[in-house]
């Protein structure tokens, strides 16, 4: 059950040499290439392209949260530089010093929470923006991780309260379905502003 590969590209060695008899199965096989960079498949990474990709990610997340990217656009140039530098330096405090301005921008209350759910076998993504409050509830109940996943991926999460087929994982931590989603975003969102959730199948 190997994932699809680009083994049809010219110059590639045959895929997946047979493992030695009796050897333990390896989790994956890595092929290193030193030529024929696949420009048609991969972006060339430069400091500029990495910076631009990051800024566009936080703008996408901001737009998903608020319906506008005003919060990101109104960051000062020095704040924007600081945000990217904090990411490069892995500096949590400096990162949140700027990101607090994004999440608590004056005149804007967060409406949606951007989520990406990953298929652990194929890497496919389901992305959605989940309202902070559950639609259809009389009192506007706060969204929990369970209600959000139930609305986004009902096949995997048929129940809003108990896990049936998979456990949600972020940062390597199994999360309770009862976790309030807005709090989860403020405490544990990834640097690009998304909740990236993968699945530990049961």
């Amino acid at each position, binding site marked *: 059950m190997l994932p699809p590969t680009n083994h049809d590209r010219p110059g590639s060695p045959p895929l997946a040499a047979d*493992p030695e008899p009796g050897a333990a199965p390896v989790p994956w096989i890595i092929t290193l290439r030193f030529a024929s960079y696949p420009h048609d498949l991969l972006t060339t990474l430069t400091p500029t392209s990495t910076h631009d990709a990051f800024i566009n990610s936080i703008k*996408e997340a901001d*737009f998903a949260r608020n319906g506008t990217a005003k919060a990101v656009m109104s960051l000062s140039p020095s704040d924007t530089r600081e945000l990217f530098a904090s990411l490069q330096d892995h500096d949590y405090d400096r990162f949140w010093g700027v990101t607090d301005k994004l999440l608590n921008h004056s005149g804007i209350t967060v409406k949606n929470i951007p989520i990406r759910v990953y298929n652990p076998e194929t890497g496919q993504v389901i992305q959605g923006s989940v309202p902070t409050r559950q639609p259809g509830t009389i009192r506007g109940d706060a969204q929990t991780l369970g209600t959000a996943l139930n609305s986004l991926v009902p096949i995997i999460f048929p129940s809003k309260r108990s896990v049936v087929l998979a456990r949600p994982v972020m940062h390597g931590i199994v999360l309770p379905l009862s976790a309030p989603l807005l709090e989860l975003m403020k405490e544990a969102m990834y640097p690009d502003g998304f909740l990236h959730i993968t699945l530990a*199948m049961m």
Partner: protein
Amino acid sequence: MSSPPLFSTSADPELEPPSLQLPLAQIPGAAPQTPPPAQAASPNEPPGSLTPVPLPEPDSEDDEASAPPITLSASVVLTNIPRDSRVALANAFMPSTAKVTIRLLSIGSAPSLKKKVFTLTASKKFSVVVNFLRKNLGLNGAPGDSGQSLFVYVNSTFAPSLDEEVGNLYRSFKRENELVVNYCLTPAFG
């Protein structure tokens, strides 16, 4: 392709191989109608299934929050729960064949297209949109030349990654049931 399965639960190494090798096995005359792996997830009636256990319907959407589709007692009988969750996984992430509507609008000096509204299968990547634009605007250079720059945005706001699915973008960012894509020859929306 005789490599070992990528995932095997150490507790039951005996259980996985039959289902994994099923699409690969070249047994003469064996179950010619056996579906290929991608369709093993087809919701109804796994035909002539070699797996002994009937699969439950994991994609019933009618049940209330309290009723999981597999009861705990059933999971004792069904010896291969991991396969059930794999079926659910395949169903949940089945590439959508639905079409989404995309409106392509030029910014600044970028030439307009005669036809501005298109439909695209939801599971296609955003790179399909970008490549379509490059081709129709004549921006692709000669082979080996990367051609002219093109900057493509959603809702005049952000540039999505090329590997994002248009269905995902549509779900999050549609406006009046259209995904609005703006394109430009110079960077905009800094």
